[in-house]
């Protein structure tokens, strides 16, 4: 009996046969490598910048994924996420295949859930892949060494590795909201390019709001701020408040977006294609 699992499996199969999947995952692999190459080329320069873990880039490879998480929030991870989330419904319009799948034995809601899960799976894969490549490349460059937490305490390398991966998981909270926004734009615009660029624009716009003078009070409620929630893990003791805040703030962005996407998908007429 076909169901959500059927859709999910075939969506993943389809993703494996699309260039944009490899474009996104390729970026998730290449960016950390390029970052490490840049560190190596500037080996003799002082890396004591004014951002978290910058001074540790040459002392522990485990600082690399954390710095990438810090800068990736600006546009890289939103773009990688949007590449698939923004395309997953719109590509059906582009190929004219909605009418093909809507006339089989699966309800629309099953198709929606299966596709949403596939887009989420891709996003999770991209983040974990990027983090893993950063850990490996960083460790090759700077060694698998202990790390200094944001509170100044030294964290052993195995514990730091654990924190890196939990940080990646925390990072998935705002990424999930980006996925939802991408899915909404994909369902509404029915155009891949518009949905991908639109998702990125929304992400950048929210960041822009965050740097505007006089808007400091809205900062805690901006999606861009939630990309830093993982830093709570790197404090001693762990500060859960930014993580909890990220969960509900991102829900405020993501849930309305996914519900709207669902309604659009369920109610739309398939008049073209």
């Amino acid at each position: 009996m076909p169901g959500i699992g059927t859709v999910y499996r075939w969506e993943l199969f389809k993703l494996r046969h699309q260039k944009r999947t490899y474009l996104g995952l390729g970026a998730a692999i290449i960016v950390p490598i390029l970052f490490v190459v840049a560190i190596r080329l500037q080996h003799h320069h002082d890396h004591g910048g004014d951002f978290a873990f910058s001074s540790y880039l040459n002392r522990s490879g485990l600082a690399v994924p954390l710095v990438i998480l810090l800068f990736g929030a600006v546009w890289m991870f939103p773009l990688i996420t949007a590449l698939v989330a923004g395309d997953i419904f719109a590509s059906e319009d582009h190929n004219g295949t909605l009418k093909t799948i809507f006339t089989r034995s699966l309800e629309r809601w099953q198709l929606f859930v299966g596709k949403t899960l596939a887009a989420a799976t891709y996003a999770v894969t991209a983040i974990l892949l990027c983090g893993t490549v950063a850990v490996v490349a960083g460790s090759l460059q700077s060694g698998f060494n202990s790390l200094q937490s944001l509170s100044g305490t030294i964290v052993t390398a195995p514990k730091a590795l654990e924190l890196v991966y939990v940080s990646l998981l925390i990072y998935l909270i705002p990424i999930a909201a980006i996925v939802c926004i991408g899915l909404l734009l994909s369902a509404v615009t029915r155009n891949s390019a518009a949905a991908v660029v639109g998702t990125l624009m929304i992400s950048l716009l929210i960041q822009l709001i965050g740097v505007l003078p006089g808007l400091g009070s809205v900062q805690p409620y901006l999606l861009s701020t939630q990309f830093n929630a993982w830093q709570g893990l790197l404090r001693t003791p762990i500060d859960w408040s930014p993580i909890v805040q990220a969960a509900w703030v991102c829900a405020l962005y993501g849930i309305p977006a996914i519900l709207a996407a669902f309604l659009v998908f369920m109610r739309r007429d398939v008049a073209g294609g």
Partner: protein
Amino acid sequence: MNPEPGSDAGDPDAAHAGPAPIEVRGLVKRYGELTAVAGVDLTVRSGDVYGYLGPNGAGKTTSLRMMLGLIRPTEGSVRLFGRDPQVSVRALEGVAGFVEAPTFYPYLSARRNLEMLAAYDGFGASGRIDDALETVELTSRERDRVGGFSHGMRQRLGIAASLLRDPKLLLLDEPATGLDPAGMRDMRLLIRRLADQGMTVLLSSHLLTEVEDVCNRVAIVRSGRIVYEGEIATLKRGASSLYRLQTTDDERALAVCRAQSGIADARTDEHGRITFAAEEGAVGLLSQALVESGALIVAMAPQTVTLEDLFFSFTEGDGAAPPPPAAPPSTGHDAPAPEPAR
């Protein structure tokens, strides 16, 4: 077994028990000010090969989309075997087909596309992939990406995708459009073969030969309305009882025709010739009456009418729905007259 095209296959007495494969009532679709479908009623009976004929833009595809649950009607209802496709996709159980050109994922092979659709269908559809590919003669190209397929190959793959569902009802929208003559012939043969296997088929088309060759019943749609629905045979039989008459005194002859028993719809056509509908027996008596009145016959011949003539008589003109073709006066043993235009 599907009856021969042109026979009275849709006889409700002969139809299978249970709800009709397609029952459409008062179907309307409006897009703002534009009315794409303006109150369509039609019934496709079990075993029919039903032609849904109309010029481009007449509302055929929109009607089919509503029948398949792809778009919501503004008004009216569609029932497929008694089930409403707007409520659940389960209404499409035993139903397959495509609207406009069939579409697939261009980056996947023909077989992968069918495997995916079979997985979406369930109920053993995967086991029918080989047969479906064989039926449409695409086995040798099953590993090729659909993105490289010609239009005709996609049309055939569309039929194969439909066959995976082991349908009792097949809805095909312009299946021969864009095909070369050989492709069109093959498509006709394929549809006929499927119909012979017992499938009920609704075939939307503007290609008259396609419909005339394979269908037994037809609806002619114009500007979103059905202007004729019934047996093709009855339609043509009614039309073939039309005669043209030329005499030495047409004015008197017209008066004789109108007064003569068994003669109907006598009038002068745009070329000034008299036309009328009649049974063969009545024509003999009319000849005698004309001679007696002094209007000597110069020429009197039955009109040869093709479905194409009938189609254009229904779909061209001032926009008003034309009347159904004149039926000859009933002698009690004739087939029923065509159903009136709606």
